[in-house]
């Protein structure tokens, strides 16, 4: 068989958009409920946690800052997986996923930057420094914005999705740079204390609320992502119907 043969793939059947809409419709409310419960628990515990002897009450920013930081990287990773799915298996849902995730990722990255710099003011005495960790997250933010611009620049959503996935994959190099920037260059920002090879070193009094709120924000992301994906799928159906109706008479 020639190279040109299409793959009428099992994946396409598995990821049949109709099936996806059905399934996601059922999961969606549970995701939102879980997100809200976890967030309430995590942030509640966090606000009740004892003050840090060094940082005082500002330590509570930890419970939002760190989940936002993790999510900003995780969302790009999710998009990279989708991009692989699109390029390798021509998974039709994958392109929808990238387009839906990009604005959410941009918001989370913005919040990481914002909470970080609000934390930096009392801790380091400055809103912003051009150090490696901070700047690399800023670069990630710019990449999210570029990605949004890219996905909106094309008329056809299909091509937009494919171009975006190429960019997402190439841009994945930024993730290790962010993660290891604190180890490679000595920066103002502190090194990892939770996600390390030899186990977390954070005090359990902070670890638990952090874990809960991180989980909660993740669920929130998944829930929003799912809603946005459902919208994207419907938008495509809309476009496609519009076009068919127009050309049906042409």
């Amino acid at each position, binding site marked *: 068989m020639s190279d040109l043969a299409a793959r009428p793939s099992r994946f396409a059947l598995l990821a049949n958009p109709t099936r996806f809409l059905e399934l996601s419709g059922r999961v969606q409310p549970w995701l939102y409920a879980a997100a809200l419960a976890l967030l309430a628990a995590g942030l509640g515990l966090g606000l009740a946690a004892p003050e840090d002897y060094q940082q005082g009450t500002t330590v509570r920013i930890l419970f939002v800052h760190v989940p936002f930081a993790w999510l900003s990287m995780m969302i790009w990773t999710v998009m990279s997986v989708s991009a692989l799915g699109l390029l390798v298996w021509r998974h039709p849902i994958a392109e929808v996923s990238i387009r839906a995730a990009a604005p959410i990722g941009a918001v989370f990255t913005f919040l990481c930057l914002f909470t970080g710099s609000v934390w930096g003011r009392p801790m380091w005495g400055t809103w*912003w*420094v*051009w*150090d490696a960790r901070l*700047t690399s997250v*800023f*670069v990630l933010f*710019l990449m999210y*914005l*570029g990605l949004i*611009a890219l996905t*909106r*620049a*094309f*008329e056809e959503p299909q091509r937009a999705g494919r171009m975006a996935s190429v960019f997402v994959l190439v841009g994945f190099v930024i993730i290790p740079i962010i993660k290891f920037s604190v180890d490679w260059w000595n920066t103002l920002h502190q090194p990892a204390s939770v996600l390390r090879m030899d186990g977390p070193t954070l005090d359990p009094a902070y670890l638990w609320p952090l874990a809960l709120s991180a989980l909660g924000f993740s669920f929130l992301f998944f829930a929003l992502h799912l809603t946005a994906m459902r919208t994207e799928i419907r938008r495509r159906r809309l476009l496609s119907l519009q076009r068919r109706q127009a050309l049906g008479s042409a």
Partner: protein
Amino acid sequence: MLALFRRDLALQLSGSGSGLVGVVFFLAVVATIPFGVGPDLALLSRIGPAILWIGALLSTLLTLDRLFQADRDDGGLDLILTGPVAPPLAILSKCAALWTASCLPLVLASPLLGLFLALEPAALAATALTLLAGTPAIVLIGAVGAGVAASLPRGGVLVSVLVLPLAVPVLIFGVAATYGAVNDPAPFRSPFLILCALTLLYGVLGPLAAAAALKLSTD
């Protein structure tokens, strides 16, 4: 004329050329500089206005070179040049659309970006003001280059090389005026007035020369 302005604006804003992208580009340029010169805030705030101006020039040049190319390639330029609107006016409205779509957002965003570069309030205001006065000149003189480049399959480079030197004075007076507003010994008024004079001069010269270039080149 208004129709042309609206269509060009729509084209510029739709898709890739949108103002948002221009601002993000600006952000990216500003974020790259500290990587080069180091995170020294005092130094950054000194070269800040120059950086903002260079970023503005660059992004204008990036959007400029296609000012007429697309219209030429699809044959629309023929209709525009022979249409009921006098060619220099048509070119002026194309320039106005380009400026509104790609320079105005920069001007508006420049104070915010200046904050990143730790500029003082006076410098922020001066940068925005000089950009507002100066960027039209870049667009207008760039139109001449775009016009000649669009018409000649060869020789496009030559013209851009001739036009860019004409844009450099704008850059220099713009930066000089900004510094004049901040540092005491340096004057603000005279470079700023020169800047405005340049914009007016190019506002007349640019469309006329571009129209002539495009007219001469139809084939």
